[in-house]
Each structure stands twice: as structure tokens, then as C-alpha cells.
């Protein structure tokens, strides 16, 4: 009894295989959508960032609609359209993801100095 037939091998095989969802019907469909949107099946930080992105997108769209609505929805001048887009874009935290990635990368380097090599940056999130 060697290799993958040992208990450790079975554990390694179980870790490799993804657990299949026990949900059925509409709930399974809902779970797939949530996974596709990144609201499930990923790390807690990524889920929070994705939720934040969707909320900001929603608010940005509402802001753009509010700005455009000031014209009464007829004969919209280009300057107002540009202003609406600028207001929506300025709401986005553009540097947030870069800051998060760089912070995690620095944490990885710090761990490497302590002889702990990290391949996936997600693994550093909860440390």
C-alpha cells in the first residue's frame, strides 16, 4: 500500500477533487449565478470587493441617470453626457485593486523572508 492508496493519498485526492454541490433545481441555478458573479466560491476578501464593485456600479449608474435627468431627457448636450460619465467614473475606486494587490504582494515578500513561500496571493488575505 503506497502512494495514492494510502490514507494520506486519499486525503490528497479528496483535496484535489472539488466537492459537488448538493443543491438542486432553482437553488443550484442561483448558486451558479453567484459563482459566476464572484459572490460565492472565492475568498472572503474577493467576495467583499466584488460586492463593493457591484454596489458602486449601481450607484454610478444612478448618478449618471440623475445627471442626465436634469436635462429632461430631451436634447441632451454632449457636455452633460460627458459630465454624467465623469461623475460615474470618478466614483470608482480605481486604485483600490492595485493597492490590494500590492499589499498582498508585499505580504508575500515578507513571508518569503521568513522562509514561507506563497504562490497564491489569496492565501495571505486572512493572515
Amino acid at each position, binding site marked *: *500500500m*503506497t*502512494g*495514492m*492508496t*494510502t*490514507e*494520506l*493519498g486519499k486525503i*490528497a*485526492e479528496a483535496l*484535489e477533487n472539488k466537492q459537488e454541490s448538493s443543491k438542486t433545481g432553482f437553488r443550484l441555478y442561483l448558486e451558479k449565478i453567484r459563482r459566476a*458573479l*464572484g459572490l460565492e466560491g472565492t475568498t472572503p476578501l*474577493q467576495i467583499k*470587493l*466584488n460586492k*463593493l*464593485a*457591484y454596489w*458602486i*456600479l449601481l450607484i454610478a449608474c444612478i448618478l449618471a441617470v440623475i445627471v442626465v435627468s436634469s436635462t429632461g431627457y430631451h436634447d441632451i448636450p454632449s457636455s452633460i*453626457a*460627458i459630465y454624467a*460619465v*465623469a461623475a*460615474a*467614473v*470618478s466614483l*470608482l475606486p*480605481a*486604485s*483600490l*485593486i*492595485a493597492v*490590494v*494587490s*500590492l499589499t*498582498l*504582494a508585499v505580504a*508575500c*515578500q515578507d513571508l*518569503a*523572508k521568513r*522562509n514561507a*513561500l*506563497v*504562490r*497564491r*496571493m489569496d492565501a495571505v488575505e486572512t493572515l
Partner: protein
Amino acid sequence: MSTNEKGEPASNITLVLDKGPLADDAPPHTLPAGTVLSRFGVDPKWGLTMDRAKEILLKDGPNRLKPPQKPSRMKIFLAQVLNAMTIVLMAATAVSLATTDWISGGVIALLVVINVYVGFSRECLPPLINTLLTEALQRNGKRPIHSLLSPRLEVLLQLFSVRILRRRGRAGKARSAQFQMKRWLLVISFSSRSGTSFPLMQGYCLGTSATSSATKRCSLASPSPCQRRQAQLRIRTVRLVIARIWYRLTSHFQDLTSCNPPSFLRFTPAPRSPKDALVALSL
């Protein structure tokens, strides 16, 4: 404390395992050690004979776990791009550029590129160096090679090994690497799938920690002045090689930016004493 027939203390595990009847086909880890030994016909004093070991190896195969599947580069790249925040920012870039807001669009695009590059490079390059270090540790169990590699030298090794292998067209062929410490010399050689090995880089291990005994072994603290001089010359040669590689890698960026090598690759006047040399060359 419970004792066995010989009056020696018995472990709780043995007592638990000896209780109750166990089937002959029970897994070995549920059986007492004596039963397992008798099943394999092993003398506990001498272990398996070579013939018996070969026979078991042929029957059961090597005791090795199947390595996990490595994700492809495309999957790693898509994982960096396909998340909600990045998609929203890319949409914002597109809208900004469509409304001729070049500055906002450019800034957001730059930040997205930085984010994707950092994530991709972090998750894509380290598997190679991780594999190398793991194998090096397995081969040199008594000497933790990774403790000898400074973080910056490790980064250099990551960049150089991947790029040089790619340039030589051997990135797909490289299977394993070997780290060897020969006095001050760190030799890294790669083995291809066909079994042939080729040296990638030979250099001196320049440790960061002066308190590390391994670093001291790798330093220029050689008793002989002749050896110290030879070590200095060799280190200068290796630095020259690294500097050449650096210039070759960055030569196509020279027109765009004034890309200078990092300070630790710049040549300084030859040190006068071994102590100065160690300080001057420490990464």
C-alpha cells in the same frame, strides 16, 4: 502507568490497537505494528531485504503522491482579469476613452494593468522557484538552501531562470533543478525530461544575514589569502555575468527609459579586505 510483559511502559496506542479482533485485510495503519511486520515478513531489527523491497516496489509502485495539476498561464491570467472590480474598471476605461477623457481612461487602464501584472507575475512565476527550492530542500535535507538565498537573489533567480529558459526554448523541457553548494559556489543546473542536464547559472551565494552560519561559510572568510583573492575574482566574474544578463534583458527598454541596473549590480572598486568585500557584496 500500564506495563507490558517485560515490565516496559506500553503506549496507549498499542493498548487500543491490541483490543478486539481485526480482519486480516484491515488497513495497515489500524493494525498493531507487530502484525504489520509479520504480514510483510520483516525483521524489525534489520528491516526489509533489498529483494523484498524491490518486490514490493514492483508490486505497489513508489510511495509518492500524485502531484497536483498545475494551472495553465491562461487560466491564471483570466483569473486576474475576470473579477467584478476589474471588469467594472475596464468598462470605466472604455467609457472614459469613448468620451475622449484620455487622462482618466489612461490612469484607470494603467492601474488595471498594474493589478493584473502583479497578480499574474506573483502566481505564475513562483511555481518554478517553489518547485526548485522544494527539490533542493529534498536533495539537501541537512542544509536549508532557501535560507541561503536572499529575497532579492531569489527574485533574480525567478526572473532569470524563467526568461533564460524561455529564450533557450527549454522552458517546457525543464523538469527539475539542482542546487549545489561547493564551498562558496552556488551551482544551479536544470534537468530536462530526456535526462540531460544543463547548467543555468553559476554564482556565489551572497547571503544577507551575517549571523547565519551558512552565510559565514559562504563568505570570504577563508584562511588563505590566495583563496580569498580567488573568491573575490570569482565573485566579480559572477557579478559581471549577472550584469550582462541584466543589460541584455533591459536593452530593449533602454530607448524608452533610462533603465539602470540596481545598485547591488553596479561595480565598485575592488575591496581591500575580506570583511569589506562581504559588506560590499551583500545583497
